[in-house]
């Protein structure tokens, strides 16, 4: 059994979540009433929130080390309860998995906050960026510290929405909007899988509390009290959710699309934090993987396949952000393999190190040409270039596969999206014929009326 934590420690833990919540609230209210704060004010708010959250997280970590406790639960009570029928409990947990993840989220967000305050200085979307940044930070902290699967789901969705809207950050071109929609679609699919897994777990165990779902022992020592087949089914849903969030096969195509966003968001979200959230979920449900070896095998297989594909696709990229995106995916896939093989601590350390390294690489990406010129000036000539490895016929085939990113996006469009939209378009045409028949003439008035700003001068 876990010992109850002292009250001061609980309140310190609450600050970790309250700080980004307050930032969200402040930026949201300021935006809604139309009196947006100045850039300087926004930066101060961000600094205050991140420093408060990070300091509190560090205090919790230090206290846990000093007190020798490995698990601090902060029950916030039931958000909603219908006695004997339904319960949505909010609990935050500080353990060996959540504390590093929360600290990582806060440290990287702090770095990005400082970077973005200069990088996006006087950009028209400065406020919008930081409003989405605040939602993202809150989502990451909530997901990291979630003690119940419902709480994790709430954080998961906040991360998804803010990430997709940041991909569509640049409003004057269609490509970011299209890519943002693609990312959001994949995320919704992943959210649906997580929600179903959460509900299934809730029904099997009667609770969404991770301690009861995954065993009493502190992470990673828990033992899930689930049968092999329920564990396999629920685990597959979780894996689907993780695959969507971490861009594993078959969803890998969204990662390079996400690079449409501004560099700070690419760095912190797709390079460092967001893309690791799927791996974090698999780490959290580690005890379920232990119950079902076939599920662990599927995790390893998916990780290996994603790693190979990401390596190949990354090798043929011609722009630095896409290359970094695939390099990131390669490492995330390897982390997934480690999780499937049961090396939880290795995977956690790998995740933390990779997130920091990749974020720094992304932040350096805009100055890459400058760095190359500096190097070449120092060397007094061009940097040496290796021979192209794609000269043989077999290599050529692999090259085509890599340049098309394994035809994953194409496959999804061809075999999932297109049949879906074609079927619905057929239904739409049938409906039109039916209403035309009933109306006796063209029933779709909207198709005859071109969009036009009528009487706009009358509008006050």
């Amino acid at each position, binding site marked *: 059994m876990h010992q109850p934590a002292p009250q001061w420690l609980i309140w310190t833990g609450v600050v970790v979540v309250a700080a980004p919540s307050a930032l969200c609230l402040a930026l949201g209210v300021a935006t809604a009433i139309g009196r947006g704060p100045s850039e300087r004010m926004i930066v101060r708010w961000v600094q205050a929130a991140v420093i408060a959250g990070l300091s509190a997280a560090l205090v919790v970590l230090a206290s846990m080390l000093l007190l020798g406790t490995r698990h601090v639960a902060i029950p916030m009570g039931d958000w909603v309860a219908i006695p004997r029928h339904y319960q949505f409990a909010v609990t935050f947990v500080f353990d060996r998995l959540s504390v590093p993840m929360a600290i990582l989220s806060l440290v990287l967000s702090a770095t990005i906050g400082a970077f973005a305050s200069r990088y996006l200085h006087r950009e028209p979307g400065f406020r919008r960026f930081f409003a989405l940044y605040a939602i993202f930070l809150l989502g990451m902290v909530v997901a990291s510290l979630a003690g119940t699967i419902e709480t994790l789901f*709430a954080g998961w969705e906040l991360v998804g929405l803010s990430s997709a809207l940041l991909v569509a950050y640049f409003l*004057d071109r269609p490509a970011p909007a299209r890519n943002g929609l693609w990312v959001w679609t994949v995320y919704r699919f992943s959210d649906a899988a997580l929600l179903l897994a959460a509900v299934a777990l809730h029904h099997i165990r009667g609770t969404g509390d991770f301690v009861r779902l995954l065993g009493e022992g502190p992470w990673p020592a828990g033992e899930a009290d689930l049968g092999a087949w329920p564990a396999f089914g629920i685990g597959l849903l979780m894996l689907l959710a993780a695959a969507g969030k971490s861009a594993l096969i078959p969803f890998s195509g969204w990662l390079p699309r996400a690079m449409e966003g501004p560099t700070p968001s690419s760095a912190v979200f797709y390079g460092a934090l967001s893309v690791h959230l799927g791996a974090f979920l698999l780490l959290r449900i580690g005890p379920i993987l232990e119950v079902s070896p076939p599920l662990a095998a599927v995790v390893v297989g998916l990780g290996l396949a994603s790693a190979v594909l990401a390596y190949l696709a990354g090798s043929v990229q011609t722009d630095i952000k896409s290359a970094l995106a695939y390099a990131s995916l390669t490492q995330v896939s390897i982390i997934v393999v480690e999780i499937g093989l049961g090396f939880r601590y290795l995977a956690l350390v790998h995740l933390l190190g990779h997130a920091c390294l990749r974020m720094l690489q992304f932040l350096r990406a805009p100055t890459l040409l400058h760095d190359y010129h500096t190097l070449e000036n120092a060397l007094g000539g061009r940097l040496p270039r290796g021979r192209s490895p794609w000269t043989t016929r077999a290599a050529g085939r692999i090259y085509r596969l890599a340049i098309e990113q394994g035809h994953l996006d194409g496959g999804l469009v061809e075999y999932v999206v297109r049949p879906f939209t074609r079927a619905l378009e057929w239904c739409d045409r049938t409906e039109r014929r039916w209403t035309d028949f009933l109306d006796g003439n063209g*029933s779709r008035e*909207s198709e005859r009326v071109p969009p036009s700003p009528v009487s706009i001068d009358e509008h*006050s």
Partner: protein
Amino acid sequence: MNILELPWLDYALISTAIGSLWVGRQRDPLRAYSWGLAFTGGALACAALAWLGFVLGVSTESGEAMGLQRRLFGRVVFALDELSAPLFPAIALIHFLAALATARAKMRRFSFTWSLAAGTLRLAMFACRSPWPLIVLLAVSTVPPYIELRSRGRPTRVFVVHMATFLALLVMGWGLVEWNGREAPAPFWATIPLVLAILIRCGSAPAHCWVTDWFEHATFGIALLFVAPLSGVYAAVRLLLPVAPTWALAGLSIASMITAVYAAGMATIQAETRRFFAFMFIGHSALVLVGIELQTVTSMTASLCLWFSVILSLSGFGLTLRALEARFGRLSLRDFHGLYPHSPTLAVCFLLTGLACVGFPGTLGFIATEMLVDSAVEASPMIGVSVVAAAALNGIAVVRAYLHLFAGGRHASTVDLGLGRRERFAALSLATLILGGGLFPQPGVTSQERAAKAILRDRARIQGGTGPDHDRATAQPAADRLSSTAGGIEP
């Protein structure tokens, strides 16, 4: 005498009815707007006081002498119960906000007279539990939309065919139920017409085309006010649920489930904002029905919460679309418009209300959707998967519409296209309710739980089942107060 003992419900109805007559005499659109706003505001205040009196358990018996119902009908026909108490002010609120947020360019087109008349009927309908008066109100409430279409010179046949079929089936079904005995489970020959009537009024596939057609041809504000309260769902709860056998509810549940997924899918491919919105409404109406027909405390509570959430969030969503139309005309979802820089508050409101519809965390719909999924999975994994799929597709449709309207291009304009003060107030009021209800959902859930238990008890009384008896020990006093009559039909 306590001020809450006054018959505020009667005053709300009188306010909109007199308002309709008075505004009809105004020829100047601006004066009509001002008077319309005053009367809908008065109705909102009265409705809020009626709700407050109900929640605080204030008896209105002493104040009934000051009302009109006993004088007009000889008895109390309109009264609040656990089900209608939160819906009544919500409907008054959306009427007020729709009037408030009417852009000056649209004041000539938006009929405040008919809006107030329809508001009276709608408020009366949601305060009515007696079957035949309710059926009469459902029938009469289809008249203002018909006149709206006629006065605009738009085709009416799709609307008329569907509404006539709905009313014929409803009258036939309820007539057969009465003939069989209202306090007994309805036989299949009485149930079938009732089920079909409800399916048509709720816009369930394949009888949903009247909704899209209605949005095509009516003014957006009037169209929104007609569909947003989900009157068909109210008819289902009051008329069908207490008497329908389980197999009928199961059939209705399957039809609603298919409709929810179909409408959500259709919303993702629409090329025009009004049709997109119409499918959003159809999908959410079906989702509410799914939960109601599962007949468990959780599913019923979830559905009632979702119903309340849908009224507010879909109305807010509709009002933002209406504000967009007032500025840019009808908008295509094939192109990218890039309107965000011109009206960022509108964009935020669009996204917030849209996400609230689909149950995003922190909004009013989140807990309702969570509970609905939970209870649906308990009833049948297939229903659970369908509800999740519908929610996921609705989410995709909302963000797709947002990106098409507010991102992806540049829109040049020489005039200020930002929200006006009245529109901003309307949007922020709804946003506050959506977020406030989302962050602190327990009071709303508790209230809806009481309503759900009362509805289930009423059904159990007629069907001869046990109902949510095991909950009676923990039920709130208000539920006990309503144990015999609340929720379903009035004996």
